[in-house]
């Protein structure tokens, strides 16, 4: 897992470094670039959750068991002038589930479990968010083909919390499975980030973004077939869904005349 993450980060860094070096190599002593009027792009990359949402502690009810995942989305930016614009982003974030072993062992053990012979744990659905965000963007040219963009987006977030199921076996008897249902909630969210945007041609540019995202959905969790007060059982989850996105965005640009 960590090795894969390192590979992703390395690949992204090398790609960005490549474009930046090409840009600088080409742009030295060249004239100022043409300001874009409107640009639309497709973005995708790695999503790394932080905080309680990323914790995998069975004994901590705030643990979200969210691991590194991915995101993709569509973005559009309209520039009011040379530096300022308004940007929107419609994106999907998905987080892998991590810590399944902790859940199974915790539920099997005692005192916070059922003290049984074995537990079969399965994840239902996944942790993900749909985001529709809008906000200001500021751009400044570093060289003819390289721009530095900053943006602060706020808006609507639809969040889903993965469910799970447990099947307990004890003394040779397997008891009926019980569930934590998949939950969802709507809330406000925000995203703050910076990007290096390289103009490949007059109409195409590639951007390497790093964004911090934050939302705080208040999930009501429905538990099915939970009969006894034992084991990990959450009735609600209101921890921040936050983390860092490392993305590449491919833009199509309409420039000012």
């Amino acid at each position, binding site marked *: 897992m960590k090795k*894969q993450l390192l*590979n*992703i980060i390395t*690949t*992204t860094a090398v*790609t960005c470094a*490549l*474009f930046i070096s*090409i840009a600088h190599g080409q742009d030295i002593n060249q004239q100022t670039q043409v300001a874009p009027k409107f640009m639309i792009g497709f973005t*995708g*990359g*790695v*999503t790394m959750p932080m905080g309680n949402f990323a914790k995998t502690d069975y004994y901590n009810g705030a643990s979200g068991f969210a*691991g*590194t*995942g*991915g*995101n993709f989305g569509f973005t559009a930016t309209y520039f009011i002038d040379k530096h300022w614009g308004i940007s929107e982003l419609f994106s999907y974030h*998905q987080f*892998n*589930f991590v810590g*399944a*072993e902790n*859940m*199974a*062992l915790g539920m*099997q053990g*005692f005192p916070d479990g*059922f*003290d*049984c*012979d*074995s*537990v*079969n*744990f399965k994840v239902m659905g*996944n942790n993900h968010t749909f985001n529709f965000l809008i906000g200001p963007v500021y751009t400044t040219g570093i060289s003819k083909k390289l721009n530095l963009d900053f943006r602060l987006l706020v808006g609507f977030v639809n969040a889903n919390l993965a469910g799970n199921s*447990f099947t*307990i*076996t*004890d*003394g*040779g*008897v397997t*008891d*009926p499975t*019980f569930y934590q249902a998949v939950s969802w909630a709507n809330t406000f969210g925000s995203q703050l980030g910076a990007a290096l945007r*390289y103009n*490949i*041609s007059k109409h*195409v540019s*590639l951007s390497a973004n790093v964004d911090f995202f934050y939302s705080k959905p208040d999930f009501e969790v429905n538990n099915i*077939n*939970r*009969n*006894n*007060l*034992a*084991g990990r059982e959450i009735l609600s989850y209101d921890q921040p869904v936050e983390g860092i996105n490392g993305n*590449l965005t491919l833009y199509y640009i309409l420039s000012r005349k």
Partner: protein
Amino acid sequence: MKKSKNLIAVAAIIITGIYMFSWCSCNKKAAATPPIVPGNEPITTLQMIFQNINDPSDIDTGTWTQLNVNGGPIDYSKAHVTLKTNASYRVYVNLLDLDFPVSADTPYFVTGEIQARENFHLVCFQADTSFYGNFSVGTPAWGTTLPGITLNIYREDSDMNTPKLAVGLIDSFVTSADSSSGILDVTLHHQPNVKNGTCPPGSIDIDGTDTVYISPHK
């Protein structure tokens, strides 16, 4: 030259994108704890202490022991008690593990562990009339008695479930006016997430017996 650079850039984007998405693709995890040999709490001994509520000097203890929890000889030599007719007894059910005593003269009491796990444990009682007759056991609700039953048993303790459910480690045994004798079958049920107040769900931690004599003279 410019065209080839653009092609290289687009190719890099696509390759990086595919790599990221293939790594980030949906990953549903499942886990199962390593199954161990099916078993339950190691309990070798069922001890029941009977104390007459109206006569504290009237105390009797029945002890059922099977040292090999996987099957083996059972020591019935102390597994019998005598109760008075028309009497109420407070009964304490103790569970011990004699295979792993605390010290040479101190047995290990499993009762505390069962109390801590009370939300998914239940002690059940039933009559085994295969050797004796005229002996019957019932576990009616509080404040009621079952007609024709020679031994009414009321579980006094309850767990933390909602609603609260009986546990059975502390009980009241109420004898009838009739003399009788029989075998009382006592089982401790392990009911993880299936405890509902009845005996059938789950597995059995221990199944012991006490021979009970109910007599006007003791």
